[in-house]
């Protein structure tokens, strides 16, 4: 069975994933929108940067985050200057790491969804007195709904399953940075296979249920509101 320490790691994991996904959607939506619409010379470089976490092995990314967010790193000096202290070994450090790690999984589905909408519905909205801001909420968001659902699923699940980054910047502190993936890894490393199986099983079951609900929801919504 699950020990209370294992349960704590599960809860903490979903808390991190929930907060990280929310931040990713808040940051990723305008970013994806900008990337879809802009003709700026920065489009290429920004696109490449967004995709970079896909290239770097997570532990390598985690190592660089540890360096960057540490007391001598650029981000660390900034957070210190802001009076926030340094981020490694804190809950919010974990959130920041997860956000950076999962960003392509949120931005790219959104970009695809936005690109598929095209500029026509926006032009129609403009001729019907909707400001660009207004038309984003009244036209783009509803039309991009499948993209938002995909982005949420990928962002959330990717953060739940993420391991390398948190291993590097977490410090394995109970109730603060000890997430379920690290806990399972530690069980396996310590040859406690039964504990590992239980925890992994619970994680899979929960994630499967969440995904199942989201996907069936997605299907239902496409049936009632066909996207062309």
């Amino acid at each position, binding site marked *: 069975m699950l020990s209370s320490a294992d349960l704590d790691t599960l809860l903490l994991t979903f808390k991190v994933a929930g907060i990280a996904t929310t931040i990713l959607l808040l940051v990723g939506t305008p970013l994806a929108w900008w990337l879809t619409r802009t003709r700026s010379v920065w489009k290429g470089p920004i696109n490449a940067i967004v995709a970079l976490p896909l290239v770097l092995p997570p532990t390598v990314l985690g190592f660089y985050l540890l360096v960057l967010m540490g007391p001598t790193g650029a981000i660390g000096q900034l957070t210190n200057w802001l009076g926030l202290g340094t981020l490694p070994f804190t809950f919010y450090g974990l959130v920041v790491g997860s956000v950076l790690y999962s960003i392509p999984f949120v931005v790219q589905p959104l970009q695809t969804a936005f690109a598929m909408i095209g500029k*026509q*519905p926006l*032009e*129609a*909205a*403009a*001729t*019907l*007195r*909707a*400001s*660009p801001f*207004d*038309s984003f909420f*009244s*036209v783009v968001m*509803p*039309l991009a*709904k499948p993209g938002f659902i995909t982005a949420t699923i990928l962002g959330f699940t990717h953060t739940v399953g993420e391991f390398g980054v948190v291993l590097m910047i977490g410090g394995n502190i109970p109730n603060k940075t000890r997430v379920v993936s690290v806990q399972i890894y530690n069980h396996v490393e310590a040859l406690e296979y039964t504990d590992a199986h239980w925890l992994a099983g619970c994680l899979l079951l929960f994630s499967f249920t969440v995904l199942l609900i989201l996907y069936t929801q997605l299907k239902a919504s496409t049936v009632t*509101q*066909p*996207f*062309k």
Partner: protein
Amino acid sequence: MTDIKARFRLAYDDFSLNVDLSLPGTGVSVLFGQSGSGKTTLLRCIAGLEQAPKGYLKINGTIWQDSERKIFLPTYKRPLGYVFQDANLFSHLTVLDNLQYGLKRIKNNLGIIKLNQTIELLGVGHLLERMPSNLSGGERQRIAIARALALNPEILLMDEPLASLDLKRKQEILPYLSRLHQQLDIPVLYVTHSQQEVAQLADTLVILENGRCLASGPLAETQSRLDLPLAQDREAATVWQVHIAEHESDYHLTRVQFDGGSLSLSLVEAEIGSPLRVQIYARDVSIALTEPSATSILNVLPAVIKQITEGRDSQAVVQLKVGQQLLLAHITRKSLLMLGLRIGMSVFVQIKGTSILN
């Protein structure tokens, strides 16, 4: 009276637009040209969907764009209605929500009355609960027109609203457009490459070619200008605005009155006094020096020759004035020579056929 001033210059890699237009503030102005002539770009510039680097646009006394003074009103602040070529309805909203989308965003809310009127005018009341994907092309386009009109715009812009429809759907929509034509008191700018739509709808005709404006003026005047390729076309025609004068039901005929004379048409089911558009193809008009006394042709009218061009091959084009109306005649160069036709001559025209447009 000029209420629309539009001046635009813009250049893309393979296309440039350079026009300077003055158009009346009422009736339908058709922007006519082949694809690539710049007619849609011009319409988009007027809507603000495209921003010409150099431009000046004044509609009913309000400046919408003046690049010299760095004024550019974004589309959503322009009190216009726009109908796209492919309807462009919001696929995530019902027909009713599509129709109400704009209404919810304007302050002055005579909205509901206007909306109900347009729903009735375009006959879409039975479609309100549907999703756009469950509509035919013709129905979609009617919703799009209703959606634009419901806003009570100061100007209606229509970009080839019939181009994506097959002939049957076109026939389904044209009557609605003609009704609009009669009932709207706002200017309409209508983009098309179809001469039929020009004849049916235009009050003012603007001819565009390669991003330039070839001609612009009242329909009959522009249609009958001999310096334009239109007059040489096999389908060349003039459209007359007439009124129904009397019905000769014995003969199944209707007499219509125009400025300076009258015509006999086959019976038109309409009240005395109601307006009518009649199209006369240049190929259906022949010229005689004296009034033919023995002819089966009913419509023989006195006319004065205003201009003559000798076209290619065997053809010559003659522009005549009948009363106050302009008329084109396509005759052979041989006839021109044999009859000795000259500008200023008084002659008689025989009109073999007419088509009634609405």
